[in-house]
């Protein structure tokens, strides 16, 4: 697949005795698939990650032997399911280093977590002429819920700019903060650029003006150790499916005192402590925010996924991904006419790029014929695409199972794209 010249300077993937990427790959059955007769090279991990056998087995076991509704029955199955469900909450608490499992709310994903904060905390705390500050690199899910809220409350949305490397312009951001600022909502890691935002500094600056901070952690949690207490953010949301768990399950972390004071999100079963037609009393945290039968199997699957990440070691994962990113960056920069979009100094495993004269969509189709799955489009970040003057980019995004060889396959695929369009 690769020439000697291409691979001469390729670092050895298995250089670290404590992280064997080939062994890791064996944990993910889908990676054995072929696409159009070629081995699958899955580089669309920022969209969703593949699932390890341990997660799949956990979900099968749940439906095979444990399936039951939770927090309701006195029967054994219900007790077991409830225990597994709450065990997953404990796992998440530990994973984020939150102080209390009551601060961990199960939601459908990052999007629902952000909408929950907008429609409960937001409606109770954001008033006319108040300001919400976001950044130019936000995913639509961290733009639109605030636009809706601003419209409802007569508040204003402020957007902190990014520089040409795709980094938040911290001084410009700080200029936007003032007595009207009630909330800062920002990505921990940009889904379209890979930029890691300086969240500690963002939180400090926001807290100085008594604004609350919500971080969109969807692209951070799979790649780095996240400690919500060290960051001191007020809310943190992430999606299970981007960290090797099933779709349809995600987390909203919130500081307990904020969650306690917030009105409920959806009404229904499980979120109440008593209901009469005259008055309903709401349940304690975290159940106040978990109306209806939740995604029990997904929640247990998320617990299994985080166990998997813990057993592999997030630091080891991060180190491996950084090596693959560095090598992939080098390989891509060899491609004539390729421009990387997003060259932040602090960056996670995302390679967003455009090829001169060739639309990302065509890049995606041709790479697919080579078995290489990437994302093409605006990555739900249209304002950011506008900032960089491109309608769309091609994006290769990494996970713990990606290899140096796959970066070679990507580079070779891109040379093929150029051939087709020569």
């Amino acid at each position: 697949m690769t020439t000697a010249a291409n691979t001469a300077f390729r670092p050895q993937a298995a250089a670290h005795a404590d992280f064997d990427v080939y062994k890791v790959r064996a944990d993910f059955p889908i990676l054995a698939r072929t696409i159009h007769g070629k081995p699958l090279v899955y580089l669309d991990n920022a969209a969703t990650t593949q699932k390890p056998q341990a997660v799949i087995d956990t979900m099968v076991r749940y439906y095979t032997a444990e399936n039951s509704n939770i927090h309701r029955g006195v029967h054994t199955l219900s007790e077991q399911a409830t225990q597994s469900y709450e065990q997953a909450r404990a796992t998440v608490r530990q994973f984020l280093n939150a102080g209390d499992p009551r601060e961990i709310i199960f939601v459908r994903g990052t999007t629902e977590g952000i909408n929950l904060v907008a429609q409960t905390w937001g409606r109770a705390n954001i008033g006319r002429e108040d300001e919400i500050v976001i950044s130019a690199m936000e995913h639509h899910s961290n733009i639109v819920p605030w636009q809706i809220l601003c419209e409802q409350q007569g508040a204003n949305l402020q957007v902190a700019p990014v520089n040409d490397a795709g980094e938040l312009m911290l001084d410009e951001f700080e200029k936007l903060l003032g007595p009207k600022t009630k909330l800062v909502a920002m990505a921990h890691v940009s889904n379209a650029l890979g930029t890691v935002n300086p969240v500690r500094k963002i939180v400090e600056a926001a807290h100085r003006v008594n604004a609350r901070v919500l971080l969109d952690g969807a692209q951070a949690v799979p790649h780095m150790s996240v400690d919500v207490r060290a960051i001191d953010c007020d809310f943190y949301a992430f999606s299970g499916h981007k960290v090797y768990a099933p779709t349809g399950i995600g987390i909203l972390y919130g500081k307990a005192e904020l969650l306690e004071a917030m009105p409920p999100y959806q009404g229904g079963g499980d979120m109440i402590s008593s209901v009469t037609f005259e008055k309903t009393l709401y349940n304690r945290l975290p159940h106040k925010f978990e109306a209806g039968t939740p995604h029990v199997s997904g929640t247990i699957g998320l617990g299994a996924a985080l166990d998997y990440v813990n057993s592999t070691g997030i630091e080891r994962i991060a180190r491996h991904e950084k090596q693959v990113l560095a090598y992939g960056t080098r390989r891509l920069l060899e491609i004539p006419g390729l421009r990387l979009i997003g060259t932040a100094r602090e960056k996670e495993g995302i390679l967003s790029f455009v090829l001169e004269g060739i639309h990302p969509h065509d890049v995606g189709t041709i790479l697919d014929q080579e078995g290489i799955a990437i994302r093409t489009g605006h990555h739900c970040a249209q304002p950011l695409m506008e900032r960089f003057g491109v309608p769309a980019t091609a994006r290769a995004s990494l996970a713990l199972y990606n290899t140096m060889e796959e970066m070679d396959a990507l580079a070779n695929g891109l040379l093929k794209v150029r051939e087709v369009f020569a």
Partner: protein
Amino acid sequence: MPDLRDLYQDIILEHSKRPRNYRTLEAANRKAEGFNPLCGDHFTIYLEVGDGQIRDISFQGSGCAISKASASMMTQAVKGKRTEEAEELFQKFHHVVTGKNGVESNDLGKLAAFAGVSEYPVRVKCATLAWHALRAALQGEQHAVSTE
């Protein structure tokens, strides 16, 4: 396994690099935009229509090779045609790119080059984007048409 060359035929690549009728139209009396929110492809179609005939047509915008070549070749194919003929051509074109039976691609002339698109279902929207905008322009719709 579909061959890439079935999709990216020479004539398609050529039109994508050197699109024809790629300009605004001074005399335009109809105009419509086509937008694919999934990939950001965005074209504006300009028409000069008189007595039920497409007297002139042009387009501008940005998109992938398939959508741009399709827009370019569409303008060539419908220029001078009566509006109902253009509509009929769209129907045939749509059938061919979606791989429906019953339409011979040789009814389409050069547009038959897009038959390969039927092997790539996610690209059908690219091939038909300009056509949807054309139809909107002919029907006098002022808002942008969207593939979604």
